[in-house]
């Protein structure tokens, strides 16, 4: 047992020495998460507001101005240009300076005055689909509101009684995150993505590198057992991953006011299990890949993409096809995002999160065992 500890310690020390010689890698492991955190927390939002809008008034009457005033007053549309002819629309759409164009056709006021229908066209640029959907919905709503106002005015003038026709008024409130900041939603998940990138990408190349440099044979003739080698290789990265977890939690709490409602210990246990599972995955890649290039690309394919896209970190998993939902259970990131978000935002603890924790533990164990078995098979050849 003591010998085992010595040997594991020796390997860990060796890995630390490698790291110490390569300050750029060390810097990347420490600085990349910070930059990512800042980017995601500040830059990203899916919220659609202030859609740049161009209004074209071909009628130029008080009635048309009153209609267009609805768009000017709406917080959703941001009128950036007012034009007099249709050519301006093409130009604005081509140069992406406007996403919505409202065109009041000539004869608008006259039609209204004679009891007819004033003609309006609202053009929405569909190349940004989310913005287009929301713009379309609000444009329809504005038109209907304006129509109702006109109808009421007319009925009043005609002496008709509309007093039994009240109006429903939607009062939209946003809960959990009233400013619709994305940081509360993204940071707990982002932590998972960053750990996955740092750990898998780094460990994926460690064994391949030993093979490339020819030091693998040296390790094999030493009295070291395979599992000791694996654990020793993992220790330094575990520590670095924990450093990343601490940094992200700290920055998220201090700079972005992400609430930490649940127990810190649940988060720590979850992170530890996830780090081991990811490292195991990295080692597995390392044992499988014949070359560094392959290891890098495999790491990207089975660590980066699934943890980014199939973890629920930014993209809702309940909206994707069922087959892919099943696939998402094959990667540990999904469980960790639930744990992290549960602890941060919902105050969950062991009692609620044990299934995810158990899944991660099982995952970590299987990965490490399979990786050392495969590594053994390869070196026996």
């Amino acid at each position, binding site marked *: 047992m003591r010998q085992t500890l010595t040997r594991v310690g020796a390997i860990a020390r060796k890995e630390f020495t490698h790291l110490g010689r390569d300050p750029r890698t060390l810097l990347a492991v420490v600085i990349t998460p910070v930059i990512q955190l800042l980017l995601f927390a500040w830059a990203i939002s899916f919220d659609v507001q202030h859609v740049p809008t161009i209004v074209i008034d071909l009628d130029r009457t008080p009635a048309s101005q009153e209609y267009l005033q609805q768009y000017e007053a709406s917080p959703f549309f941001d009128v950036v240009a007012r034009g007099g002819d249709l050519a301006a629309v093409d130009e604005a759409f081509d140069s992406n300076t406007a996403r919505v164009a409202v065109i009041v056709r000539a004869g608008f006021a006259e039609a209204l005055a004679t009891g007819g229908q004033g003609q309006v066209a609202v053009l929405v640029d569909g190349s940004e689909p989310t913005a287009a959907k*929301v713009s379309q919905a609000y444009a329809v709503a504005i038109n209907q509101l304006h129509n109702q106002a006109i109808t009421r005015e007319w009925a009043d003038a005609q002496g008709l009684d509309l007093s039994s026709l009240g109006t429903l008024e*939607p009062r939209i409130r946003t809960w959990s995150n009233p400013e619709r900041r*994305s940081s509360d939603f993204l940071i707990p998940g982002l932590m998972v993505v960053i750990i996955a990138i740092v750990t898998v990408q780094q460990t994926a190349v460690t064994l391949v590198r030993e093979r490339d440099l020819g030091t693998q044979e040296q390790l094999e003739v030493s009295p070291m057992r395979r599992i000791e080698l694996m654990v020793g290789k993992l220790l330094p990265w575990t520590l670095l991953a924990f450093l990343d977890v601490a940094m992200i939690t700290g920055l998220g709490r201090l700079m972005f006011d992400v609430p930490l409602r649940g127990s810190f210990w649940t988060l720590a246990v979850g992170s530890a299990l996830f780090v081991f599972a990811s490292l195991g995955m990295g080692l597995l890649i390392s044992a499988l890949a014949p070359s560094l290039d392959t290891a890098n690309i495999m790491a990207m394919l089975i660590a980066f993409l699934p943890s980014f896209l199939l973890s629920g970190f930014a993209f809702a998993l309940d909206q994707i096809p069922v087959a892919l939902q099943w696939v998402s259970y094959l990667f540990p990131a999904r469980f960790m995002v639930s744990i992290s978000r549960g602890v941060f935002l919902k105050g969950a603890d062991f009692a609620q999160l044990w299934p995810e924790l158990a899944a991660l533990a099982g995952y970590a164990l299987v990965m490490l065992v399979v990786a050392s078995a495969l590594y053994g098979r390869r070196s026996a050849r």
Partner: protein
Amino acid sequence: MSSRRIRLLIWKEFIQLRRDPLLIRLLLIMPVMQLIMFGYVVAVDIRHLSTAVVDLDHSSLSHKLETSFSGSGYFTITSHPVDEASLRPLLDRGTVTVALVIPEGTEARILRGEVAPIGIIVDGTDSQVSAVASGYASQIVAQFNTDRIEASGVSIAAPGVEAQVRVMFNPSMDPLNTMIPGLIAVILMLSLMAIMSQAVVKERESGTLEQMFVTPIRATEYLIGKITPYALMATAQMLLIAAGGLLWFRVPFNGSVWVVLTGLALFMLTCIGIGLLISLVSRTRHQAQQAMMFLMIPTMVLSGFIFPVQSMPAIIQPLTKLIPLTWALDVLRGAFVKGSSFTALAVPLLALAGFAVVIFGAAIVATRRRISE
């Protein structure tokens, strides 16, 4: 310049590639996986949001309103909590993302001709869902009011506004139609930068760079030989994505092939340039790979590939202009979705040309200097 030497060098690169059959397979699997992931996960349409209805009015009007929500296809009513207080846990647990609260006396107010407020609560954790949900909810309530006025028979004779709301370019508003053109540029960037950043550093690490220099090969020949195989590889990957997008996902192509090819060619030079520059400044392959990851993530996030630039804070938006991918996306999406011509895309194309000249030029000069040292 000798075409024979270049051919031999290209041949050598292909032999090296063949030694690692897994790599080639992975390079072809990569685009397919990305197509599946981005096509089915990122470009997902937001519909059927699980909704809770708190009906405190229990009137025929409140039932009708509920039906208009569930009939729209955007909201799926999954629960009916008894009061507003029991909404909180439902939203907190994520069981529902939207809630509709109809206060007591809503129908009575409406019949008295008053304005009756109703509550629409959206879960703000996912800003995309909350934006879309608020938009649809406003539209449904406005339609509800209009229907009531129409049902009263008043509006038949009344004047009104007839608005045609038309979606241009992408009438189905399918997110795939903008995602797939973007993916073509992204895969080009990912694979070229990943491989080119290793190119020179790999030879240096294994000591074959010196061997290369004692041969009569010249710097330009060396570069052409080094770049060609990987440019071909990246082209194959792009073709796979384009074919998958056009044939499987049925993404429409409205523009000119020449616009797309010009944009991609310029962008390709830029990516090769960035990769070579990384390869030149890195001492080990590991460092080169780190540097690439370091550049890649801000590029993916800030280019507008997944997250719309328009939703970013005003301070960050100018920064996105410094990223070549942003302009490449403008060209590809413009050509695919809007069918934009050379003149309409002059600005992004010129920007890409600028990047290509500066970055690729710098890479060539730096490589030549390194080689002649």
